[in-house]
């Protein structure tokens, strides 16, 4: 029988460990991510795998990424990465808002609203909203989504390019992401 440690202890341990390695990590990331290719495009294959984290921390715990439901795009020499995570370990209240992670390494607009560089949680909700949350589950922005009834084969999460902008879809609902 598995006995779980209290969540708080786990959180502190994880965060402390992460801080130790942080200084070494950031330069490595900068070296490895190919940011010199200016072409706006949705990443696929190895390019996608390289930028999608295998798990993501959000309000007290880390959850594994659903790699099949992850997407990334390069716009204006920056990257936007999003992915659904397994939220089954979270409370119903968090699950109702939080579906996955949203990372941008450049300033962007989402549905016309500004979003600075950072890592966030996100969720598409049944009321037609796309919500960006900080890692403490506080709302950063909320914009209306558009429903694309003509979309032929919707997926749980995907990106498409529309000129220099990106559409982030969850099923048939999408928001437009643009460089700022």
């Amino acid at each position, binding site marked *: 029988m*598995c*006995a*779980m*440690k*209290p*969540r*708080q202890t*786990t959180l502190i*341990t*994880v*965060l*402390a*460990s*992460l*801080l*130790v*390695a*942080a200084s*070494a*990590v950031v330069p*490595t*990331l900068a070296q*490895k*991510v190919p940011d010199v290719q200016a072409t706006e495009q949705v990443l696929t294959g190895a390019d996608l*795998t390289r*930028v999608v*984290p*295998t*798990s*993501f*921390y*959000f309000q007290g*715990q*880390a*959850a*594994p990424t659903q790699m*099949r439901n992850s997407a990334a795009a390069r716009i204006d020499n920056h990257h936007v990465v999003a992915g659904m995570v*397994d*939220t*089954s*370990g*979270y*409370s*119903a209240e968090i*699950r*109702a808002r939080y579906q996955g*992670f949203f*990372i941008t390494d450049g300033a962007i607009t989402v549905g016309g609203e500004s979003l600075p560089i950072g*890592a966030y949680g996100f969720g598409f909700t*049944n009321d037609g909203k796309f919500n960006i949350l*900080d*890692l403490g589950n506080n709302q950063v922005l909320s914009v209306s989504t558009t429903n694309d009834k003509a*979309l032929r*084969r*919707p*997926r*749980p999460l995907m990106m498409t390019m529309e000129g220099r902008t990106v559409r982030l*879809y969850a*099923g*048939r609902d999408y928001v437009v992401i643009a460089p700022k």
Partner: protein
Amino acid sequence: MKSFSPQRRLSFGLVAVLLSFSLLPAQTPQKKVEPQKPVGGVSTGAPATYTSRRTVGITDPNAPVVFEDVTDKTALGSFRHRSGGVAKDYIFETPSGGVAIFDYDGDGRPDVYLLNGSTVAATQGKEKAPRAALYRNLGNWKFEDVTDKAGVANERWGFGVAVGDYDNDGYADMYVGNFGVSRLYHNNGNGTFTDVAEKLHVARRGWSTGASWGDYDGDGRLDLFVPGYVQIDLNNLPPSPSEVGKDGGVSQNFCQFRGVPVMCGPRGLPGEGDTLYHQKADGTFEDVSVKAGVNDPEKYYGFSSAFVHVDDDKLLDLIVVNDSTPNQLYINKGNGTFEEIGYPSGVALNENGREQAGMGLAVGDYDNDGRVDFHITNFSDDSNVLYHNDGETNFTDVTFQAGLGEVSIPFLGWGTSFIDFDNDGWLDLFVVNGHVYPVVDAHQWGTSYAQQALLFRNLNGKFERVGAPPGTALAMAWPGRGLAVGDLDDDGRLDLVINNLDSKPAVLRNVAAATGHWLGVRLIGKGPRDAIGSIAYLTTGKIRQRQDVVSGAVYCSQNDMTLHFGLGAATKIDKLEITWAGGGTELVDVTGVDKTITITQGKGAKQ
């Protein structure tokens, strides 16, 4: 509890994100990180309060009686399924088990095999294991329990049963998918079976579910596909709802359904890959899963499968229904490999691009357009899905247009099968239901643990729920799982057997009054002999029906392989065409209706 400012929490989170990038393997923190135990429940719709359960007590006094519950009039009424404890603390206690209707003794009457579950104590040898049971059909609704003589008690945690005459000796064999070690019961032809799984190299370990037999490479010998569900270590079980609040137990944040602690899984638990066994010329099997491209490297939670002709190119394709993950559709490339096209074909997800909790699978041409369609059952707060085959490996989710959407949402579906219950020439649909969380009965969530089954009448491609007269079978509620269809009394009306969790089964006799003419068709091929993968096309007037010989599907269960055609008012068969699994097409002359004929490949019909 020490709290962190939002800014600090953001910083920590960013670092966590960066650290988890796959391109940073060398930057492992020196301090030991406590691994996050992956646990999970089932993600469903938003909580809502209902004034009725919607899944029980829905009756219509004016509806005609279609099915009579005759369970207690038969020997099957003494069977008791058992699977774990009543609290259902663990996922492996909830999905058992399957049922098969097949003629094991070749007397022309379909018999019934009911799988049983088990308990943790039984798997550890601390108590007697529940037994599966084989009932010989003596006719006139008399059944004899022949389990001991046949040697098929299993006494392992049974989930799926798939029938196939793998050695082409004329006697139907059974593959039993277990949680533990699976079995292949070879039919010795004298009323007994022998477990040859180890000898023939198909004794799959792990959690095997709804298998399917099919000759995917056209060598005349049946091959075997077995889906895997979840990896479970009985010595290291996931957290259970019974632990909540106890010292050292899990937080209530884990494994909830609508805020209430429930068993964990499948999400958050590691899945199992799938296995394809190719039968060699010497009768043994080899695992060709990876080579064939059907090993399921993503380890989706597999429940049901079926070899079936999807694109009608003479090569047997394969569909796999997965719980909480995308369904898979494998197209046979004819060179021993398959191409997985679940996403582009449209069967991986529903029309809105959502992954669903796939359980059962019905295979049939419901709109008589000559192509095989699929109906897949799902979790409560979600609809079952009807995938229409548009041709050229394209499917469209037509659930709501067909009338099957809204009505199925409160139900948690399992076994499903197309069944022309009124013999009008259009395949109707039957669905077995039952929840996995006993706690649902303590809340007004609009659903229930035991649930009514659903019967839908097909009105030229649109479906309409058949009402349940009070006190009849359709008005009853069971924690249903497996389902099998067959004409148990040879009266031309299809009957049903349902395997119910922790309960006695339900034997449903079709007593529908207004039914059409019919024709039963048994096929004997040159190889495979039981004709799995063969297709019969029957034409009466303007209607051309298609029936496939399928092993498995439903939900971990097996329908009788005698093909059943409703003919409506027609008393003459205009055309019966057989496309044999082993190759070749044959036109068969049929004289008369309302009977079962046997067609032997190359020799025509025995009327």
